[in-house]
């Protein structure tokens, strides 16, 4: 029950906020903050309750929901879902903090916001494919409204694109799930259940895995921003209001990756093995392509958007390794990018934008003098993002790369190395353009008044996210101790 509280509390929070009058935005934000903190607190309880690799706190039993269709309402979590629960909690809190001054239709904003978060928690907790899919979709629709109503330029287009991509992905997923339902067989014939625990007992014939796996994987990977289906991500991230882009980058993209791991890899081991190299190649394209495009962007948010695509490439790469250390890296990278991606979006979308009123890099220059504190915080975040040792990004990439050495070819590794270099390159170039570049001599001199300093909610949010990244970067065992035993169980079929 404990774990499910995250979902319940979020939905209650959504309703509460939704029913409060729009004029009471000062009260609404406190309700929102309380909801988010409560969700995180529950995840922390989950963290301390986990004892081994198995699913914890299993709630519900087989076929208790819609027995006619073999559907159960069964939830629980293991070491793989745990880091994602935590990152959802963190990002949710910080999302509220960075939307602290939002007053336009605040009640609706937080209603959609927490509906989305509830859905996300639900996905991470579902132990039934149908239930997982339901929550997965619940997380789709609020995104549309969050972007279409509160977004920036081209918000309608971006919102529609994002939702259609997500929905297209889920269509593939649904097809895959239905195929699994019919084709998973044990000694007594077809299992005909959506229950993950039941499904793990049977297996799908190898030939069928060959075609179901790419369906499922691609379906989920669209949401994870896999090239060439990543284009929703940058446009969506850019148009979205800050809290939403934080959620999108921090959490929603992880939904896809989680699905890839839990459902596609978890249930279709042979299919996964067959397609691993292919995924590896796509992952490399993701990393390099994302980095390259980021280098070319003028809009600061687009830079971060493409860097998200690039970083998700590491998650996919980790998934492609199909070994314990690589997958641990993938999960760690999900956490890491969740925290850092959210942080970068928060700084660019709110902290900088509210002060400069522009995100175009050619209009920003030499901000280091006018907002030194913010500039250095961003530099720290960007360093974390490019995988500087000591931050979580490094440790997760390290795990992934070790995993790649173990099971994929050296060429892929060289590709990844090139991607890392590109990452360093564009990060530095963009930091330079935004913060250190001198104004062109031809421009008329402006009065260089310093911008206002960071507000308290901003400081708190930044501290939380950056702190989390540092903490995991230096003490990764906080998470890996929980992740690895669960992955061991997940990988059991691969041993045969």
């Amino acid at each position: 029950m404990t774990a499910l509280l995250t979902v319940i509390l979020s939905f209650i929070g959504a309703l509460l906020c939704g029913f409060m009058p729009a004029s009471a935005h000062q009260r609404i934000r406190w309700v929102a903050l309380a909801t988010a903190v409560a969700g995180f607190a529950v995840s922390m309880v989950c963290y301390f309750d986990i004892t081994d690799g198995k699913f914890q706190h299993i709630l519900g039993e087989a076929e208790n929901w819609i027995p006619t269709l073999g559907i159960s309402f069964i939830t629980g979590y293991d070491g793989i879902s745990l880091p994602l629960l935590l990152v959802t909690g963190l990002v949710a809190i910080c999302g509220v903090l960075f939307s602290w001054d939002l007053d336009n239709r605040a009640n609706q904003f937080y209603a959609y916001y927490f509906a989305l978060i509830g859905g996300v928690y639900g996905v991470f907790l579902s132990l039934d494919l149908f239930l997982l899919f339901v929550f997965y979709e619940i997380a789709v629709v609020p995104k549309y409204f969050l972007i279409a109503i509160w977004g920036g330029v081209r918000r309608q287009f971006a919102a529609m694109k994002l939702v259609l991509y997500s929905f297209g992905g889920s269509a593939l997923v649904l097809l895959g799930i239905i195929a699994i339902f019919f084709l998973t067989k044990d000694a007594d014939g077809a299992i005909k259940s959506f229950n993950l625990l039941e499904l793990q007992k049977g297996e799908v014939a190898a030939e069928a895995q060959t075609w179901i796996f790419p369906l499922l994987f691609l379906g989920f990977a669209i949401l994870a921003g896999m090239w060439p289906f990543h284009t929703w991500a940058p446009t969506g991230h850019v148009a979205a209001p800050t809290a939403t882009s934080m959620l999108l980058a921090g959490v929603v993209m992880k939904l896809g990756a989680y699905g890839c791991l839990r459902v596609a890899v978890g249930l279709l081991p042979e299919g996964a093995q067959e397609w691993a190299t292919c995924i590896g190649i796509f992952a490399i394209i993701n990393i390099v392509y994302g980095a390259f495009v980021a280098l070319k962007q003028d809009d600061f948010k687009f830079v971060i958007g493409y860097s998200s695509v690039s970083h998700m490439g590491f998650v996919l790469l980790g998934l492609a390794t199909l070994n314990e250390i690589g997958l641990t890296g993938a999960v760690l990278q999900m956490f890491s990018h969740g925290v850092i991606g959210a942080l970068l979006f928060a700084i660019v979308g709110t902290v900088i934008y509210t002060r400069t009123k522009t995100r175009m890099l050619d209009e920003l220059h030499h901000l280091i003098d006018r907002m030194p504190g913010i500039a250095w915080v961003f530099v720290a975040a960007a360093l974390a993002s490019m995988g500087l040792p000591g931050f979580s990004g490094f440790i997760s990439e390290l795990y992934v790369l070790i995993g790649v050495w173990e099971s994929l070819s050296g060429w892929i590794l060289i590709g990844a190395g090139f991607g890392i270099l590109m990452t360093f390159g564009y990060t530095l170039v963009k930091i330079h353009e935004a913060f250190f570049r001198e104004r062109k001599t031809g421009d008329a001199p402006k009065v260089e008044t310093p911008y206002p300093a960071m507000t308290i909610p901003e400081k708190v949010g930044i501290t939380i996210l950056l702190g989390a990244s540092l903490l995991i970067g230096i003490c990764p065992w906080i998470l890996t101790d929980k992740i690895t035993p669960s992955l061991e169980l997940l990988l059991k079929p691969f041993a045969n």
Partner: protein
Amino acid sequence: MDLDFQKLLLTLLPDLVVVVALFAALGVDYSRLRGAALAKRYETAYRISALGLFAGLVMAVLQACGKMCVMDAAATAGQLKLTTNTLTLKTALFALALAVLPLAKRDLVTTHASEYFALILLATLGMGFVVTSQNLLGAFVALELVSLSLYAMTALNQSRAASGEAALKYLTFGAVSSGFLLFGLSYLYGATGELNLANLPQLESTSLLIAAYLLIFVGLGFKLALAPFHLWAPDVYQAAPTPVAGWIGSGSKIAAAALLLVLLQPVANSPELKKALVLALAALAVASMLVGNLGALRQTNLKRLLAYSAIANAGYLLVGVLAFDSPITDKANGNQSVLFYILVYSIASLGAFAVISVLADRLGRDAEISDFNGCWKAIPGLSIAFMIFLLSMAGIPPLAGFLGKFYLFLAAISALPEAASLDQGFYWLIAFALMMSVVSLYYYLRVLKAFLVVTDEDGEAKQVPVGIADRISIFALAAIIVALGLWPEPLLGLLQN
């Protein structure tokens, strides 16, 4: 023929009550209220028919629960099939009609007050008989009763010239389709010499039978608005009084779908015939999904858009019909899935029309999508309800429409459970259906954008008073959609045949 008339009376009591109410409404209107204000006449007719329908509903529920008149085929000499399954459908139809009545009351589109309500009741009665009938001829006659009432009602919108035109179009198309249906039924009769479906012998795969079924598909295809027999739908949906459009889009669909399933049952035992028919059904499904979804993309009028969405949804429905012969014990049962889906779809569709009726007609607008800009501010409750209806139609969980669609797909796969690759079984069809549902999300969201996203300058002008009965019926429909999505098991249980 020996009929126990007491039993027969009890069996038909729900319908009789409705008939009595129908005449009462007409009688009171013609005698006491002659010359009274139109609103008053509407109110009275509404009250009488609502009361009658409610009484009928209660009795139908009692029947369905087995509290009144055992389900006994003998009572009607095998002409009616009264099982939990069919009675549930009938109950649902009565309940939906009850939700239509308050909507019909508020617009005063025609001076024929009592006739309006009488026609609604008549159509409802007809639908009730279609879903319970076991006799080819009986079913046909009942279906004609439904159709004729609907033709007449379509023409009732006196404020719009297009109304009459649409009614004429509906009538001509409908009459032709009835002809096809009758042809098909008579071929079936000719081939088997049996009118009672329960007694049909095993069917051989003859060209006569194939022709018979193809003609039946054409006939019912018109009623269900399947492509390529859909041409009447957009005009009728747009021009008919909104509550009538809602009733066409929901009640008559339930009746036609149920009839289609009943007519297909005898085919289950002859594999060759089945093979030929399944192909035709799949083709119809693909065509409908394609025409409906692509057609809807271009619409700017909400009612027309819903008409195209109805076409598309009929296509999804056929995906489940493909599995009409799956064994009852199986975890995914075709008939159950079709009935569940059509019920859920009807509720959502009726709900959507109800919202349109409350908003657009009262404002004297033509229900262009942009007319609904900024509704979230003026009427947040209804906007949320509308979102629920539309998202249910689009198939977004946790709403019932998603579960319905999901079940249809499961059923279609279970029709050929041995299929293990994309080109076997109906995986390709489902892939297509899913692709189309992605397309559909685009136009649904476009509508929702108007309702929930856009801020309109004259938002205050949209502050329309919404009657308590309207509110209740709309929110009840929305609540049912949510409830069925979260907890469908009871309804699924009732629909197990």
